[in-house]
């Protein structure tokens, strides 16, 4: 009986703490201007994506393979009532494909969203802008990577989503329309 009372008391305490959070104005929460990033891992390497450049994160969504002349194109997936083309982020970054279908998707663009598939999502990061630097030559810089971010002891390459979307549109322009 004493155990049940202790748990009920602890639940009430947590609920109170959660409600108090919304009672304070945003400035009182000590919120500095932090940059939100998604930490992910592609081909065993640490990468990050700016949160403001994507429109959503999806897990365990089935991607149906679709025949195409674009090698990075994996297929299509149904997300939020729309048919979204899915591309391999690893292939777009210049890595080879191991044949497995990645489980995670980031959605890019609001009008005609495009899904970028990657195998492993690590965490959600809020990083001060001072920890983000322009990528230097010789740091393993690949295409679509212009910045690096230091999160703890790990340095991550920040993937430029607009650059990737531009590259996809360039491919589509050569091979057909996006709807195709």
């Amino acid at each position: 009986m004493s155990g049940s009372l202790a748990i009920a008391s602890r639940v009430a305490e947590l609920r109170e703490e959660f409600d108090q959070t919304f009672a304070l104005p945003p400035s009182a929460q000590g919120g500095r201007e932090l940059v939100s990033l998604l930490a992910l891992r592609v081909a065993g390497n640490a990468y990050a994506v700016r949160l403001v450049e994507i429109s959503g994160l999806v897990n365990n969504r089935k991607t149906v393979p679709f025949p195409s002349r674009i090698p990075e194109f994996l297929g299509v997936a149904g997300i939020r009532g729309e048919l979204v083309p899915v591309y391999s982020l690893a292939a777009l970054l210049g890595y080879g494909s191991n044949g497995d279908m990645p489980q995670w998707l980031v959605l890019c663009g609001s009008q005609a969203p495009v899904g970028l598939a990657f195998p492993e999502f690590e965490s959600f990061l809020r990083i001060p802008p001072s920890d983000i630097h322009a990528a230097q030559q010789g740091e393993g810089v690949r295409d679509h990577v212009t910045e690096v971010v230091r999160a703890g002891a790990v340095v991550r390459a920040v993937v430029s989503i607009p650059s990737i979307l531009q590259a996809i549109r360039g491919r589509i322009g050569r091979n057909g329309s996006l709807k195709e």
Partner: protein
Amino acid sequence: MTKAWSFGQKVGAGFATVVALTIAMSGVAIYALKSAVGSKDRVIAVNAQSLIDAQKLNGAMEWRTGAARGFLLTREDRFLESMRDSRTEFTDVLRDLKLQTQTDESKLILGQIEDAERDYQAAIDGAVSLRKTDGPIGAVIRLFSDELVPKRDVFRQQVQALVSREERLMEEAKKASTDAAQSAISVVIALAVIAFLLAACIAIFLTRTLTRQIGVAVQHVQSSSAELQSAANQQVTGARESATAMNEITTTISELLATARQIAESAQRVAHIAEETAKAAKAGDQTAQKTRESVAGIKRQVDLIVTHMLDLGKKSQQIGGILEIINELAEQTNILAINATIEAAGAGDAGKRFTVVADEIRKPPTGWADPRMKFGRWSRISARQSTRP
């Protein structure tokens, strides 16, 4: 084949050959001797007897001639008696000669002698009759000279011819016997020479073979002697090395003996210590017995704990299933919060408070997340351990 024979076999074969030749030579010699003896016996038994009988005929003829002369001179009857005896002997000898004679020539001569004797006896009987009738002596002498003497000469010539023939036959038989004996002697001599030559050849062959084998054997003996000498030298060297090694071994044994004595002393000390240790061990044994009993009690307690742990593992496995559902819900909540943050960022300033809400949803509750996760890991580990055999 000859090379395969041993020397003893060769000697035996040589002696056997010589003995065979000797036996053959002896047989031939016996045969020749028998032939010579038979020939001589035949000369003595036939030819000599015939010659004797011929001489007897001659004697009987002369005996009768003398008796006839005596009667003619003296007219005594004893000479007639002697004359009849001589004729009887003559007749008997002549019958024997006829029985012995086989050749036609001899039978012819004996027939002529018998005819001459008959004529001579007729002449004698005429003169005896004339003398018995007291006729003139002159007529008797003339009869004697004219008839008796010529017939006696004819009779003597016939007898002498028989004697001469028998003498010639005996000489021929003697010569033939001598020739046969001489031939046998020649054959024996030839065999003896052949046996001698063969024996000499065998002796030379055996001598050469023996010399060759002895030479080979001597060479083997010489080589064996050299090998034995070298082996003996090696054994001498080995014996010297063995002697040196034995000296070293003796020295080592002496040292080992001294060491063994030291070890024996140490062993005595160790035995003393062992006795003390044994005493302590007895005390330790009692302690160990108590410890064993205590361990048995601990084992029973541990078994009880294991039983409780197994039950606890099963319950933890059930709790782990519930926690997996909670984790999945938390992950979906986290994704939902991130998407809310993305949407709030797209809403600009209007979405800042919503961003706060999304952050609060996404952040793990303080004091709740860590114990939860620890309990989740602990429960999964307990479940795995409890399911092990």
